């Protein structure tokens, strides 16, 4: 197909108002318009299905009918850029964040960010977490140490009780009114086989983001303490090491190399 034909075909695929693309030749006597609309419908329904599969908690929160309308609007504007359907909807959270009329469920965009991160974590590269013994062997200039985090690690920050809402809508916790509407940051990771979602302690998000950005342990702890006065380094190291989030230690000599 020429580029122009492809563009016309793609446009007709997304917009029912356009009818079938020109020069569509039927292989049998049937009307191509009708058969094309079946194909168009299948494309839309399957992409909506891909979103429903990837964002089950968001779907549960607003209900199937509402979610499907949201998905339909997204699908019409965002054709897939890859045949890998598990990654379809990577920018669905941005779409949800800008969608009108969601004021009462303003946390919905963050839920979709968390769910998108879970899928990415699930398909992220495998890596062996460092055992605690690797840290016990560390001595000397601890403050200059840099850490390589597991490829699956993502931090999702939120101004809402994100982890509680997600847990209630993914079968991890019982559904009910949320008395404490304080912000929660989430950690998503898959150190081994299972994807975990954890609520980060105060300053934990800043700590992890700094470490992931290549900051030294001391700098990362400093930035976390600056953001949250209650930042507890021991608690965060327990999460970091016990949670299997570190895959390599870069000592000061190597870490300072460009």
């Amino acid at each position, binding site marked *: 197909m020429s580029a122009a034909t492809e563009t016309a075909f793609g446009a007709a695929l997304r917009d029912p108002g356009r009818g079938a693309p020109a020069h569509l030749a039927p292989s049998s006597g049937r009307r191509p318009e009708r058969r094309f609309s079946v194909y168009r419908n299948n494309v839309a329904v*399957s992409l909506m299905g891909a979103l429903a599969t990837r964002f089950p908690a968001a779907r549960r*929160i607003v209900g199937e009918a509402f979610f499907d309308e*949201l998905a339909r609007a997204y699908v019409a504007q965002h054709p897939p850029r890859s045949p890998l359907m598990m990654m379809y909807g990577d920018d669905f959270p941005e779409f949800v964040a800008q969608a009108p009329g969601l004021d009462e469920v303003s946390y919905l965009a963050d839920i979709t960010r968390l769910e998108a991160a879970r899928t990415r974590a*699930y398909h992220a590269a495998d890596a062996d977490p460092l055992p605690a013994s690797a840290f016990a062997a560390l001595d000397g200039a601890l403050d200059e140490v840099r850490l390589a985090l597991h490829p699956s690690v993502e931090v999702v920050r939120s101004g809402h009780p994100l982890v509680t809402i997600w847990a*209630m809508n993914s079968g991890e916790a019982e559904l009910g009114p949320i008395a404490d509407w304080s912000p929660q940051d989430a950690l998503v990771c898959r150190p081994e086989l299972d994807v975990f979602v954890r609520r980060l302690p105060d300053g934990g998000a800043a700590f992890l983001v700094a470490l992931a950005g290549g900051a030294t342990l001391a700098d990362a702890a400093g930035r976390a303490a600056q953001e949250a006065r209650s930042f507890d380094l021991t608690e965060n190291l327990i999460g970091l090491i016990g949670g299997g989030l570190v895959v390599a230690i870069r000592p000061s000599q190597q870490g300072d190399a460009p």
Partner: protein
Amino acid sequence: MPARTVNAALAGSLLAALSIVSASAAEDKMAGKEKCYGVAMKGQNDCAAGPGTTCAGTSKVDYQGNAWKAVAKGTCTTMKTPKGMGSLEPIKM
């Protein structure tokens, strides 16, 4: 803080953390396990076949415009939020 103080603080925290982590002895969890399609996170188990293989769309014409007719009837009405009960009104896009 001077570098030596930072280092000492880090070393103290690390020691405390390690004593707790190794007490939980989380290390050989993976012994005898392999990654396979049988082991997956909740809600991802059906991804091997992949969404998009369905033919459900052939039975009805689903793709119609952008009018949002739906009202949210999900769990948002159960979780009380500072902004209300999440009983969304129909909206248009």
